């Protein structure tokens, strides 16, 4: 295998792995946080507005880790810096 093929294989496999694992783990975390927020809303319906707002902010924080993984895999596929370097050579 020459350099460009090797880079293509490595970046495609890594992009798949990045999105796969990076979707799995935040999904588990979001599930846990939503379930505990639902529990606390069921126990204290009066505080539901505060809980919902905090839940949304927290979910956005957890979700952003998945988004970082997605952006990294998009960079690997569509805007790979090593790719341009070796093609220019």
């Amino acid at each position, binding site marked *: 295998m020459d350099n460009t093929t090797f880079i293509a294989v490595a970046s495609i496999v890594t992009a798949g792995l990045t999105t796969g694992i990076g979707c799995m783990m935040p999904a588990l975390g979001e599930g846990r946080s939503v379930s505990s927020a639902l529990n606390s809303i069921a126990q204290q319906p009066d505080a539901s507005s505060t809980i919902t707002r905090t839940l*949304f*902010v927290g979910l956005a924080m957890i979700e952003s880790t998945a988004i970082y993984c997605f*952006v990294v895999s998009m960079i690997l596929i569509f805007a790979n810096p090593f790719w341009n370097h070796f093609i220019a050579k």
Partner: protein
Amino acid sequence: MRLSPDQKIFWQHGFVNLNLTIVTTWVLMLILVLGAKLITRKLKSEITTTRWQSILEMLVIGMKGQIKEVGLDKPGKYIGFIGTMFLFIAVSNLFAIVPWYEAPTSSLSTTAALAICVFIAVPFFGIAESGLMGYLKTYLQPNFIMLPFNIISELSRTLALAVRLFGNIMSGGLIISILLSIAPFFFPIVMSALGMLTGMVQAYIFAILATVYITAATQDNKQIKKNKNLKHG
């Protein structure tokens, strides 16, 4: 495949170029400013008001309430910044129902500009609230060992703000364009409805996070002062 509307260039001179992102942003700004101007031209304080005035009143009262709930006591001072941020992001994400429209928030340059606005506004409001020394003291908050970590968190949360908004909106557009080639007609509609919901949630979260950061920069000192007053009193 075009990843961002930055790559569609209408006019170029040297390093200055006029791309789709800038044009869309200008059109949105024009719509927002003209709409606000037209609606607030004849405000009434009677029992019956126009329906547009009611919409704007609901928006402003809702935003003021949200800012107050997070912990800023005088929301009128901050609504000009936070509310404009929220309205711009929400409108630019909701216009996705217009065909051939590409949200300017799906380009990293727009979201980076918005995040840098927050990055500058936090010390601005902090200094306006408690003076230069008072603001600088918030960097030494628990004790002086935390100084580098506070500076790093200031930078990393700006990066996170920019990449979060960009990633969410860009992934929505990308999923729709992939689905259009696999399963056209029905599924793209569902996904674009979901994308509009995500866009609204992201606009809300961007505004709330900006509010939280501003609160953290302005509030620490009040609490220190309160503690001092308690000790002296």
